[in-house]
């Protein structure tokens, strides 16, 4: 009898949790939908903002082409592409047909930028800057100045006092995304844990399980099995968004997200395990599926309040939230993305979370052991904590 599972019966329970779930059509379906949503969330904004290649600008002659090329250099390259048109009407047709984003045609005392329904600020500004630069260089030549002399003393540089790792909008987006991933996963899997527990109570199979293995092994098997499933789902989501980002040329975001990813996993696992213990208790307090609505309410609150806090609260509130157990799982990775957080802060937050998780899991195991075999009626939390061992 050297079988590992004999000494660690939780492995069998975890194995059953996982193998049951990955054959469950509802679970597979919801995972697929979630993946599609993630891919859509990554790709669609990129498509809408037109990051799918350089914008075509219709021009009539070499002078126009040179302006577009200069504008392209101003934007850092790969932003604009020249499309030749024979005359103004042809150029306008290219724009109205959508073949070109805009047209640059000669106008009174300079140029006219022609757009279809509206003009992108970026295009307009870049073209305007290019026209001004080129025009002024020409005018300077006529006045006997070199371009360098002309530009002397006009350089403007940028210096940020607290440079953020990501542009604001992207940072907010990724921050909300990470918190949302934790929230959705913890809620989804939490409900599944609670359901799985109450199913065993409802079908009375729990009596046989409890006679064969320690109840704690049953709890650990469930918590670990579902943690593995949840992490796998997150890896899938990460892979899907990675593919989406690479496909749409947004790989730059990864440079910022990657160092935080490891922290996110640590915060995720600890926060998830603590919550999993609570969800298992929510299941063990109920006697039927219908009871779950009320017994899971505290769990939903513990998850929802920190979620909105970590997404919408102001900076100092977020800082506090990033140390509060469970809230920290959502707030700290987000803070690390959007601001510079000294190393001791995530480490301290993890320490606090670790202590809290150990405490919560211990309490959960105690309550779970005492309520799992009570099939008479639904129990309240206060009542359950006061229960003595059976």
């Amino acid at each position, binding site marked *: 009898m050297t079988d590992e599972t004999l000494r660690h019966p939780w492995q*069998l329970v975890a194995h*059953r949790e996982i193998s049951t779930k990955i054959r469950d059509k509802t679970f597979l379906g919801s995972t697929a939908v979630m993946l599609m949503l993630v891919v859509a969330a990554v790709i669609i904004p990129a498509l809408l903002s037109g990051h799918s290649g350089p914008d075509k600008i219709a021009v009539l002659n070499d002078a126009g082409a040179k302006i577009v090329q200069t504008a392209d250099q101003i934007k850092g390259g790969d932003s604009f592409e020249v499309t030749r048109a024979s005359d103004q009407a042809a150029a306008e047709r290219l724009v109205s047909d959508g073949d070109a984003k805009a047209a640059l045609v000669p106008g009174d005392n300079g140029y006219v930028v022609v757009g279809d329904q509206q003009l992108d600020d970026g295009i307009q500004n870049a073209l305007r800057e290019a026209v001004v630069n080129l025009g002024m260089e020409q005018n300077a030549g006529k006045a006997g100045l070199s371009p360098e002399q002309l530009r002397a003393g006009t350089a403007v540089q940028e210096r940020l006092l607290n440079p953020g790792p990501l542009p604001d909008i992207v940072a907010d987006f990724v921050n909300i995304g990470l918190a949302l991933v934790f929230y959705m996963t913890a809620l989804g899997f939490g409900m599944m844990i609670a359901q799985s527990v109450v199913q065993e109570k409802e079908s009375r*199979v729990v009596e*046989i399980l409890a006679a064969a*293995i*320690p109840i704690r092994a049953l709890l650990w098997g469930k918590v670990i099995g579902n943690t593995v499933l949840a992490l796998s789902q997150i890896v899938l989501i990460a892979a899907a968004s990675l593919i989406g980002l690479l496909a749409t040329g947004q790989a730059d975001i990864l440079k910022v997200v990657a160092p935080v990813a490891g922290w996110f996993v640590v915060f995720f696992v600890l926060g998830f395990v603590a919550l999993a213990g609570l969800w298992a208790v929510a299941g063990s307090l109920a006697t039927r599926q219908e009871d779950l609505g009320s017994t899971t309410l505290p769990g939903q609150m513990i998850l929802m309040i920190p979620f909105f806090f970590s997404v919408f609260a102001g900076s100092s509130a977020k800082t506090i939230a990033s140390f509060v157990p469970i809230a920290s799982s959502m707030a700290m990775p987000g803070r690390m993305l959007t601001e510079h957080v000294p190393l001791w802060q995530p480490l301290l937050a993890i320490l606090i979370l670790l202590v809290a998780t150990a405490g919560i899991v211990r309490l959960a195991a105690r309550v779970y052991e005492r309520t799992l075999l009570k*099939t008479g009626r639904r129990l309240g939390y206060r009542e359950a904590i006061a229960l003595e061992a059976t």
Partner: protein
Amino acid sequence: MTLRVTLRGDVCGGLRSLAWESLPNGSVRDCVPDSQRWLEERVNGMLSVAGLTRRFGDHLALDDVSFDVVPGRMTGFVGANGAGKTTTMRIILGVLAATAGEVSWNGSPLTAAVRRDFGYMPEERGLYPKMKILDQLVFFGRLHGLDERRAAERTDKILSRLGLSERAGDVLETLSLGNQQRVQIAAALVHEPIALVLDEPFSGLDPLAVDAMVDLLRDEVTPEVPVLFSSHQLELVERLCDDLVVLARGKVVAAGPVAELAAGPSTTYRLVVDGDAGWLRDVRGITVRDVAGATALFDVAERGREQQILAEAMSRGQVLEFGPERVALSDVFREATR
């Protein structure tokens, strides 16, 4: 080269003769004492409860309950509803803690490791409704300590024994209730339990299904396994059980072999004649319990008196029936739990 082998369900002698046949140049140097001890710990175990007491708040559910379940014997556990049968069984299985008292196996306190080899069928039936029965039985086999291969073998065997091989891939809830009940007992037997505790195993079954279940138990349970089962169906207990424990209001009121409890030294006789048996009322030395036409039931005060009554009856006419009246188990039960 020395191999170390740990076996389950085999003894050293068997290993030696096996080595003799298959390893002409080898020998068994040592029979690993671990497996021997393991075996001794499990085979031929006597399951005992001593002084079991359980309180639920102010209610005393069990009051100093003691009895033995002897290896190789089926022990029937009877008592009215609420007498404490299920509570006792749940304490034996470790699902419920005793307020006082102890459950022991072969004289030592029952450990969780040994208990894991027990088979249990709880009063409230239940398996995973949405799990395939094959997966389900393998899972329970493994939960009780079988390795993967053995669990699969045993599941195959037990399913074909139950005639459910074709349904192996079906989800439990699609089976008829009778078949679900069979799978339930299979789940208690799949790991070749060293002791069986069955709470009302036959309730809700029709007589044919009861017979099938009894056959299954006889085939699947090795002779040395102690079996404790509770039941309301006394005639069934009488038919199947070797020993009996009667529980009333949390106390053991009778215990012992069924034959002794039921037969007893009977002093009641039954007589059926071809005429009217009313004359018995006037005979001295007997107490007439009942006379109805040609049939009479009477008690004798001393042994031998019944022979005189028989002679008297034969002189009066034909005797159609005569003999001692066996006490039905239900009378024992009623008497004990009164």
